[in-house]
């Protein structure tokens, strides 16, 4: 008998036959490419993988993959995904949301899916704008953002996805950038490996309504000094020369960037990244240029012994196998009488 070995899948095998319909130059293309590449590197089974999205430009994502996909309603994707995992925990479920989808209309669901720790990969495409509805400011837009709905500049303080996630009790938070084709798959793989809810914030350029929103730290000329790529167990160094590092300000719970060799600073003064340190993660997600670099990579990863759906289903299984119920017994339990 000839048992055909399954052909090795390439990134192309993870693309669907649908024409991709984002604006030319949109950062979503790069993310799609990185995801397809990641799926190929992991050789995931398309039939066991589900991409679930809300509504928005980002949320069109599932149509372009050859896996199962469910394009749901605005903001609610985490809730659909929770129902899927409670029904078939074997499925590998990814959730794709925009910043409005995840943090505005769907903020409540994101909060609860993170604290419950449902085993999902949640990808948040943050372009700091409502792309699909033509450019209104979003909950992640910086103060002063001019948009059709805020012609005089927005007034409200933006929400930080990282602080939100850590505050909600998330056990995995990572960051990357659409164009970082080398780093993004690494972060995606870590997210998938993590048993529990893993939130990945991906800075995504909306070329039409918010072009270059992240140029201040992603532009080649500044990236090395304006970003730090975290690695567990390694000193938190950055900069073109890798001569800058992070340390705690003496006497304060606050980070500062220092330069090796200046004021007697040596590598021994630089903090080592411990991705299980929640308090440090809270400081790291708050870093902003120019005084501090933007934290990239796996900022926080501290898995719980088990994920939510595993716990729920284990309880059901344990009760059902110790005293399996039959319909006959259910209907006749308690007080009954016979009429003859």
């Amino acid at each position, binding site marked *: 008998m000839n048992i055909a070995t399954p052909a090795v899948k390439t990134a192309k095998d993870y693309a*669907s036959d*649908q024409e991709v319909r984002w604006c030319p130059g949109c950062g979503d293309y790069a993310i799609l490419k990185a995801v397809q590449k990641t799926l190929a590197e992991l050789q995931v*089974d*398309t*039939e*066991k993988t*589900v991409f*679930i999205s809300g509504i928005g430009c980002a949320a069109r994502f*599932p*149509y372009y*993959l*050859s*896996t*199962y*996909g*469910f*394009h*749901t*309603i605005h903001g*609610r994707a*985490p*809730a*659909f*995904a*929770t*129902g*899927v995992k*409670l*029904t*078939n925990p*074997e*499925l590998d479920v990814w959730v794709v949301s925009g910043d409005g989808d995840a943090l505005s209309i769907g903020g*409540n*669901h994101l*909060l*609860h899916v993170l604290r419950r720790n449902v085993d999902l990969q949640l990808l948040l495409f943050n372009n700091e704008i409502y792309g699909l509805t033509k450019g209104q400011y979003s909950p992640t837009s910086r103060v002063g953002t001019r948009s059709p709905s805020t012609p005089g500049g927005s007034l409200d303080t933006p929400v930080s996805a990282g602080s939100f996630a850590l505050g909600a009790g998330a056990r995995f938070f990572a960051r990357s950038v659409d164009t970082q084709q080398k780093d993004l798959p690494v972060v995606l793989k870590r997210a998938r490996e993590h048993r529990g809810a893993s939130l990945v914030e991906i800075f995504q350029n909306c070329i039409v309504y918010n072009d270059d929103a992240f140029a201040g730290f992603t532009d080649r000329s500044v990236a090395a000094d304006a970003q730090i790529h975290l690695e567990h167990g390694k000193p938190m160094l950055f900069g073109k020369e890798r001569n800058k590092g992070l340390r705690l300000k003496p006497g304060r719970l606050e980070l500062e960037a220092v330069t090796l060799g200046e004021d007697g600073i040596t590598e021994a003064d630089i903090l080592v990244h411990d991705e299980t340190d929640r308090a440090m993660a809270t400081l790291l997600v708050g870093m902003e240029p120019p005084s501090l670099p933007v934290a990239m990579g796996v900022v926080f990863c501290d898995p719980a012994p088990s994920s939510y759906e595993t716990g*729920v*289903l284990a*309880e*059901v299984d344990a*009760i*059902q196998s*110790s*005293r*399996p*119920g*039959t*319909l*006959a017994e*259910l*209907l*006749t339990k*308690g*007080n*009954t*009488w*016979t*009429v*003859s």
Partner: protein
Amino acid sequence: MNPAALKVDLPELKSGGLLILDSGSFNERNFTKAGYQQDPREDGSLDDYRIVEVDMSQMTQDALKDSGLTKKEALRCKNMWALGLVYWMFGRERKPTQDWLTSKFAKRPEIATANIAALNAGHAFGETAEMGEDLAAFSIPAAKIAPGLYRNITGAEALSWGLVAGASGADLKLVFCSYPITPASSLLHTLAGLKNHGVVTFQAEDEIAAVCAAIGASYAGGVGVTSSSGPGVALKTEAIGLAISAELPLVIVNSQRAGPSTGMPTKTEQSDLYQSVFGRNGDSPLVVLAARSPADCFDVAIEAVRLATKYMTPVILLSDGYIANAAEPWAVPEAETLPRFPVTFETNAEGFHPFKRDPETLARAWAVPGTPGLEHRIGGIEKASDSGNISYDAENHQRMTNLRRDKVLGIAKDIPAQAFEQGGSDDRLVLVGWGSTYGPISRAVDNLRQEGLPVAHLHLRHIWPLAENLGELLSGFEQILVPEMNDGQLVTLLRSEFLVPAEGLNKVTGKPFKIAEIEAAVRARLEA
């Protein structure tokens, strides 16, 4: 009755009815508290009734003087004394109540003993007291009921068990997702206790998450069920539209309460019929079923799961606060005789697309994630009828709208023809009811027919689609009267569907119809 109860409940009593007054509580203090200026026994307001005065407080205390209970504790047993008297009047067995008291107060046997003593004392009073004609025992022969095994069941239990039986009939896992709200929470509580039947329950962060998780469950190949009351169902509306568009099974239970908005959470009403049949954006047909009584919830829940899974459609099951909490005797069905309708998921990749339909039922193929070769994408955007891919084509949208409508209307072929509960086409007036008005309507029709009046009763379980023969049945009547605990909803549906001169009999006081109210309305019309 004490003065307070008399004040509130006297209007419910028919003239000539029997009033048993607890004379011990008829004092100045209680008159003032109840809002009486003077003793109602002396102002002529009770002239229309037969009155029996018994000092129940004293008699209860006397019966319990050796029980070791304080006076205050003993007086709490007064209702059992009254129940004992009523049991004597109607020739009822005391044993089930005695057993219930014993188990209810298993941890405080002295309380159980005292309550049973009070019950027995009330009964003995009836037997020995010389009350003459006034308190003659009513001999009510045992109702003619079919032989078999019986139990008491509440609406919440019957509905929960029906969902379990429905999921079992479909051979699927039941995933129940809900957010607490009165009077719907009892379903969540009951089902959370049925894990030994493999039931998964999920208390979501809100009603939207609950319905979305239920849809996710169906998408993954389970029976997704969500439940709420009107305000919560309103929140679920957008997601229900997605289930209609993506054509996924879903059961939405609505335990109705008085509205609008928060309304009167603990008062019963059946005012969410419009919300169920019409309350969504777009042309968005689904199935609506209504349970008529606590026990009926069992069969209706099974039917809801059957239709949802067979036709890939959301089904709204209407119950109400009264049905959910009331209990009634139920002839327990044999588990082996319950309906079976096992679901077969699509597995054949040849010619597959997610909106491929069964030509008979028009249901789309149900292909669940995990099935090799059937990977596909679905969502709420309109899809091409022949590929399932996104389509904004005008003709296609017309076609898909028609398909969704015809699929749901076609279910009329798969449900029982509408039958009369009582009477028939020869009668002059028909009462058309749905939901928990069943009890008072059927009693009223029974009484009126015994008087020889030409009244018939139709009671609808299937609110949408309506039974195929309903229009024809209605067209034969001179008068159609639709009693509803709302401001006129089914009546509008019937008028618009069948162009019949149906008339509403509407009541929204938070209380069920009285039999006499329905009788009076019918008489007035037949005499007119």
